[in-house]
């Protein structure tokens, strides 16, 4: 978690306006508030988590990214963050489009389904992968649309979404993703972090 927060924080310029979509208990918001910017909002679907955030004095709205991002004006945030949540939406493409409307830049992080540990489980065990990063069983997972780093990379180029920066994370090792190392990073990283713009 800490590495991911650091990478996200490094992608953000100081004193900018940030929206964290699916902000959970507000850990990332708190981290960015202490390190980068005071002007940060959150959107979260779980009542309990919203209450936890509000208790910490964080500005969070209870709502669903698929329907409630519309209320924010176009480009009203410098950065919109979607941390490890994209795969849980019914319609990830719609969410990405909404994010790109509301934010001047968007940071998306995805748990990589192409990571070799994940692939090996399906290949050798023949069962849906359960890892540290993806701890749910197939029957109770909130993750409806798993994708790989390569999937997301290709998605961006198909949809003409500009990738500013793409970073791969393995344990605490950070590296850049580019066209030539894409296949390798897709195999050897558990998390992909993308800074994109429409």
């Amino acid at each position, binding site marked *: 978690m800490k590495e991911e927060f650091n990478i996200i924080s490094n992608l953000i310029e100081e004193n900018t*306006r940030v929206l964290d979509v699916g902000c959970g208990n507000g850990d990332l918001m708190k981290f960015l508030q202490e390190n980068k910017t*005071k002007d940060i*909002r959150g959107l979260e679907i779980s*009542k309990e988590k*919203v*209450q936890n955030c*509000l*208790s*910490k*004095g*964080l*500005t*969070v*709205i*209870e*709502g669903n990214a698929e329907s409630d991002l519309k*209320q*924010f*004006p176009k480009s*009203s945030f410098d950065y919109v963050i979607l941390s490890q949540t994209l795969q849980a939406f019914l319609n990830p493409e719609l969410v990405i489009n909404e994010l790109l409307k509301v934010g001047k830049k968007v940071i998306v992080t995805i748990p990589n389904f192409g990571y070799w540990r994940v692939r090996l489980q399906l290949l050798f065990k023949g069962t849906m992968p359960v890892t540290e990063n993806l701890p749910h069983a197939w029957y109770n997972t909130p993750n409806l649309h798993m994708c790989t780093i390569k999937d997301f990379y290709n998605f961006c180029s198909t949809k003409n979404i500009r990738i500013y920066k793409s970073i791969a994370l393995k344990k605490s090792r950070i590296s850049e993703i580019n066209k030539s190392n894409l296949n390798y990073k897709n195999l050897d990283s558990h998390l992909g972090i993308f800074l994109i713009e429409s």
Partner: protein
Amino acid sequence: MNKNVDTKKIIISNPLKLDCGKEINNFPIAYETYGVLNSKKSNAILVFHALTGDQYVSGKNPITNKDGWWSYVVGENKPIDTNKFFVICANVIGGCMGSYGPSTINESTGKQIGTDFPIITINDMVNAQYELIKYLEIEKLFAVVGGSMGGMQVLQFVANFPDKAKLAIPIACTSSHSAQNIAFNELGRQAIMADSKWENGFYSNYKLNPDKGLAVARMAAHITYLSEKGLQEKFGRKLQDRDSLRYGFEADFQIESYLRYQGSVFVDRFDANSYLYITRAMDYFDLSKQYKGNLSDAFKKTKTKFFVISFTSDWLYPTSENREIVIALNSIGADVGFVEIESDKGHDSFLLDVPSFLKTLGDYINSTYKIINERRI
């Protein structure tokens, strides 16, 4: 209504132009305060009361001898902790607890003003209370807070005085009274006016009180404050002090007995004309109309932080109407938080012991107070 209780009161000498066109001056505002104003005057919270509330937010209400109407929220070591905050609450104009209202005695006639009292609005109530803030010499409030009609006053206050509160917490309210809300209020008013003892609002001249009408108004309104589930769980079809139906129109059911009781205790503490005037003020409330149909414009000039709260089982001021406020604020990039609290206690949830509401509200106010104070240093 026992008026022999010592209430804090100021006389507003500045003329106040009402929305109806009339002007009032030299009128009383009754209020109460709790806690101590700090030397920087940075810890003041103005609480607005709802339809039948009054200035006695916390502690013992000296008139009813019952707990203040928001004792769960305001008091020592409560979510709004009076060890820390200076809490102010004023009786709205139109009310009957010492502020200028239809039961105020007209000094030239020696009689109650009755229905010669001008029609007032939420805007008028808020403007009158602002005079109290000026009198208390508070440049900027830490927060304005209120539920139901109190929430409407919160919205109106920030619209009227965009730089006078750092934080605004409207709870279980709306920016515009719906047809359903108006309908229920009209039912209550008609019940009062249909009482032969109403005498066109001049009942006190005849030493009468339209208590039957007022009680019916209260009974009907009380149902709207609860939820179907809450009613069913609490009362169901349980019988009142009897084993079987009596085949008559006495209160066979507990719910009937409960409503009759609610009606009967209400008439002892509330003035029928005040009920007419205040419900009318609520019906006239439409903040977006004041801003040519764009609610966002009401908040364009403000940097006030907002926290909007609604309740799942509130069908009188449902979450959708509270969300309208959030959407209007978000569309201009205002600083707004929002949560819908799970509760089966209906609209009344904001007045009752709903732990997740009390905890979230208290934690939010306290951490925001800390954050805002740290920022200033």
